């Protein structure tokens, strides 16, 4: 499949992602934030597809948008949001935080401006058709140990979440 209108789609998806990101951190209502985050995640899945990473895109949709965000919505529905909506949304030191984050952004910009030439033209065409197989080979070959650790981590997370959220164990 040769990509079509790459430039347009890139800017479109990037805009969707970044604007949704802005909405995530500015909305008063957490549910709206969560919806914006879902949109950002979907936009990012599109970006993954453009980067020839269909498997990651699929995992992004199925796990992030379909799984983790449902969890978020669940919790938002459980906690009272009406009270928190009326309160002050930003903490006392918001200006410091903002400045720090902007400084970080400036740092990024600096680095990218300086190292711009490092990236150009070095892209290799990845085999898109066998992407899933390649990832599987890496995942169950080179990264077998990490994979097992990840499964253990998930188990611990399940137990932790149950312990935390259950009223009486």
């Amino acid at each position, binding site marked *: 499949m040769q990509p079509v209108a790459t430039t347009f789609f890139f800017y479109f998806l990037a805009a969707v992602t970044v604007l949704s990101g802005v909405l995530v951190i500015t909305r008063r209502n957490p549910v709206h934030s969560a919806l914006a985050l879902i949109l*950002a995640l979907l936009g990012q899945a599109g970006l993954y597809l453009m980067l020839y990473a269909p498997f990651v895109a699929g995992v992004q949709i199925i796990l992030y948008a379909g799984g983790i965000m449902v969890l978020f919505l669940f919790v938002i529905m459980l*906690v009272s949001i009406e009270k928190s909506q009326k309160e002050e949304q930003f903490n006392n030191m918001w200006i410091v935080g903002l400045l720090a984050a902007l400084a970080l952004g400036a740092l990024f910009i600096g680095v990218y401006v300086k190292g711009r030439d490092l990236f150009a033209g070095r892209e290799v065409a990845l085999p898109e058709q066998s992407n899933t197989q390649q990832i599987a080979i890496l995942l169950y070959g080179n990264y077998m140990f990490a994979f097992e650790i990840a499964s253990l981590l998930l188990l611990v997370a399940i137990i932790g979440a149950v312990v935390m959220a259950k009223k009486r164990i």
Partner: protein
Amino acid sequence: MVPITTLHYLVVAAALFVLGVIGVLTRRNVVIVLMSIELILNAVNLNLVAFSRLYGLHGQVFAIFVITDAAAEAAVGLGILIAFFRNKETVNVDEVDLLKW
């Protein structure tokens, strides 16, 4: 038009990262702070996947591990949030100022 290079993706990722950091540092609502952390993790993922075009598929595998991490983090974080809300009846990070009560 300028062809889309890895740098473009890195800029998007950096923007997302900065947005996430702003969210974490300035918002009071724990839920939104957790969502901002998700944004940060996603920015990292985007970087990893973008770099995998330069250095092979390892980046994509790492992205999958990061997603796993994000799932674990969300589960535990939201669990803590529920426990916290049950005790304090608020979701403001400012109020989380005790290690034990």
